[in-house]
C-alpha cells in the first residue's frame, strides 16, 4: 500500500542553517499529528511538502508522487490551511472559496456549489456573503478550513487549526477534523503544539526536535500496547499468595506499599483471570487501572532524546 507521506533523507537548508536534517520515515495514519517545540521545523516540513521550499537533499513523496518532480500533481491532491491569517482582501467568503476551488481545477459551473457546500459544512453558511476581512478570528479559521477542503483533497494539511479559537469553536473544529478523518475520504496532517488537539484527532504522530525526527509512532498501537500495564489496589486476603499466583500465570509483578501491585500482563491472561485468582485468595480488588502513556509522556520522552536518536517508533 502506498504511504501517505514518505520522507527519504529529507533535508532543508536556509542559507547556512540546516532546518530539517535527513528526515526518514513512512507515515500511513488516517490522521497524522506533527508535534515539536517552537523552531523544531514543523512548518518548514509542511512548506517543503507543499513545494514552497526546495529540499537541499533527499526527497519526500505524497501518495507515491515525488514532491519535487511531480509538484503540481502533489499539490492537486492537497488542501492546505495555513497557520497565519490568509485570505483575499475585499472578497466575500463565497467568492473567496469559489476562487480557490477554481484554482484547484474545479470548473466554474461546479465551483460555486462546492463553495456553498464547504462553507455550510464548516458552519459559515449564514455569513458566507460577508467579506472575509470583516470576520472574527474564529470565523477566519473556519473560512481557511473551507478553502482547504472545497476541492475535496486526498490529504488535508492543517497548520495550528485551533490557534486563537474560543473553547466552543475549538471543540467544533476538532469535531470537524475527526469527522473528516472518520469519513475515510481524506487523510489529515495536523501540526499543532497543543498535545490535546493531536491526542483527540490523530492516530499517528511524528515528533520533530531541532530539525530531527525524534519519534514516529502509531498512537493506536501504542494505546493497545499500553493495555498490558496494570496497577491494582487490593484489600484483605493473602496478597503475597495472590501475587505469586498471578506470577504463576506468566505475568511479571511488583508489590508496592501495602496495597498496591503493578503487573505486566501476559498475552494469554485476561482480566477475568485476575478476578478469579482474587476470589480464590479472598483478596478484594478495589481498583484496577490500565497504566498507559499519555501523548504527553510520549512527547516528553521524545524531547529527552538528543539529536537524531530515533527514526522510528519510540
Amino acid at each position: 500500500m502506498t504511504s501517505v507521506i514518505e520522507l527519504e533523507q529529507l533535508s532543508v537548508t536556509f542559507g547556512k542553517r540546516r532546518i530539517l536534517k535527513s528526515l526518514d520515515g513512512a507515515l500511513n495514519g488516517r490522521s497524522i499529528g506533527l508535534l515539536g517545540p517552537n523552531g523544531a521545523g514543523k512548518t518548514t516540513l509542511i512548506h517543503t511538502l507543499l513545494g514552497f521550499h526546495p529540499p537541499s537533499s533527499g526527497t519526500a513523496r505524497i501518495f507515491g508522487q515525488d514532491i519535487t518532480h511531480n509538484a503540481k500533481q502533489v499539490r492537486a491532491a492537497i488542501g492546505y490551511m495555513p497557520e497565519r491569517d490568509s485570505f483575499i482582501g475585499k472578497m466575500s467568503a463565497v467568492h473567496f472559496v469559489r476562487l480557490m476551488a477554481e484554482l484547484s481545477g474545479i470548473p466554474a459551473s461546479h465551483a460555486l456549489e462546492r463553495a456553498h457546500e464547504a462553507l455550510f459544512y464548516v458552519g459559515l453558511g449564514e455569513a458566507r456573503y460577508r467579506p472575509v476581512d470583516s470576520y472574527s478570528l474564529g470565523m477566519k479559521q473556519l473560512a481557511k478550513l473551507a478553502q482547504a477542503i472545497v476541492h475535496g483533497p486526498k490529504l488535508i494539511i492543517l497548520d495550528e487549526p485551533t490557534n486563537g479559537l474560543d473553547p466552543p469553536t475549538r471543540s467544533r473544529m476538532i469535531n470537524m477534523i475527526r469527522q473528516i478523518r472518520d469519513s475515510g475520504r481524506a487523510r489529515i496532517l495536523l501540526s499543532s503544539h497543543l498535545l490535546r488537539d493531536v491526542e483527540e484527532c490523530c492516530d499517528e504522530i511524528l515528533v520533530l526536535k531541532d530539525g530531527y525526527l525524534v519519534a514516529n509512532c502509531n498512537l493506536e498501537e501504542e494505546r493497545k500496547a499500553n493495555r498490558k500495564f496494570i496497577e491494582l489496589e487490593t484489600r484483605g486476603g493473602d496478597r503475597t499468595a495472590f501475587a505469586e499466583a498471578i506470577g504463576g500465570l506468566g505475568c511479571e509483578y511488583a508489590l508496592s506499599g501495602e496495597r498496591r501491585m503493578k503487573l505486566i500482563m501476559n498475552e494469554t491472561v485476561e482480566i477475568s483471570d485476575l478476578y478469579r485468582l482474587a476470589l480464590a485468595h479472598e483478596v478484594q480488588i478495589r481498583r484496577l487501572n490500565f497504566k498507559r502513556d499519555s501523548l504527553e509522556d510520549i512527547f516528553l520522552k521524545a524531547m529527552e532524546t538528543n539529536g537524531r536518536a530515533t527514526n522510528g517508533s519510540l
Partner: protein
Amino acid sequence: MAVYEHLYRAYDGEEVTHWSRFLVIPRYAIRDVFKSKLFTTLFILCFIYPLIAAILVYLRHNANAVSLLQINISELLPIDNTFFSTFVGLQGSFAFILTVIVAPPLISRDLANNALPLYLCRPLSRVEYVLGKMAVIGFLLSCITWIPGLLIFLLQASLAGVGWLWSNLWMAWSIFFGSMVWILLLSLIALAISALVKWRVVASGAMLGLFFVPSAFAEIVNSLFLTKSAHLISLWATINNIWLGLFRLFERQTGSVRGTVSNPIYERQFFDIALLEPPLWASWLVVVLICGVCVLLLARRVRAYEVVT
C-alpha cells in the same frame, strides 16, 4: 449533494486543464475592476480616440460624406505610418493611466493579506501566478491599444484595397508589436512595484514617480548639457523612440542648437550643435534591462513565504 447534508465530500467530477488555471486570476480580477465606476468611465473614454480615428479613415474614403460635411479632403490627416504612430502613442498614454489605476493592488493586496500561500499551495506555479496577474493588465490594455489599432488598420485596408494592404502590412505588425512592448513594460513595472509596496496609494505614487521624475530630470540634463542622451533615463522618451523606430519614423538628429565660444583674441564664435537622440538599440536595451530587473524583483518577492537566512 445538497447543502443541507453537512458532510465532507471528495470531488470526483471533471477538472479543467492545468495550463488554463491561471486564467481564473484575470477573470476574477477583471470582474472586480469593473465594479469601479471611475474605472469603467475611464475605460469607455479610452475608446473616443479610436472612434475618431475610425471616422477619419471612413471620411478619407467617402467623397459623398466629405462633400456633405463641407470639409476639404486635403485637410484630413493622411492615413499613413504617422497616423498609426500617433494612434499608438495616444492610446499608450491612456494605457498608462489605466495601469496606474488597476495594477497597484494586484499583488500588494495578496501580500498584505498573506494570500500567496493559498494560491501557491494549489497546482499553480509562481510563474503562472505572475502571468495571471499580467493577463489582467494585458487584457485591459490590449482592448484599448492594438485591438482597436488593428481594427482601424483593417478598416483602412478594406476601403483602400488590397494594394494598400500589401504595401503597408508591416504597419499592422508595428501596431501590434509596439503596443505589446508597451503593455509588457507597463505590466512588469506595475507588478514589480505592487510586489514591493503593500499600500495601494504608495504603489500608485511610485508608478507615477518612476515615469515622470526621471523624464523631468532627463529634460533638465538635456537642457543643461545641450544633448538628448539623457532621454535614455526617460521611459516616455525611450518608448517613443521605439515606436518611431517601428513605424520607420525615427531620426537620430531631432534638431540643433546654436552654441557660442568666447575667445579673448577673437570675437564670439557661433557654431551649431546637433541634438542626437540615443540610438535605437540603446532604447531597446533600456527596455530589456528594465524588464529584466522587474522579473528579478518579482522572482524575489512572489513567494509563498519569505525565507530569512
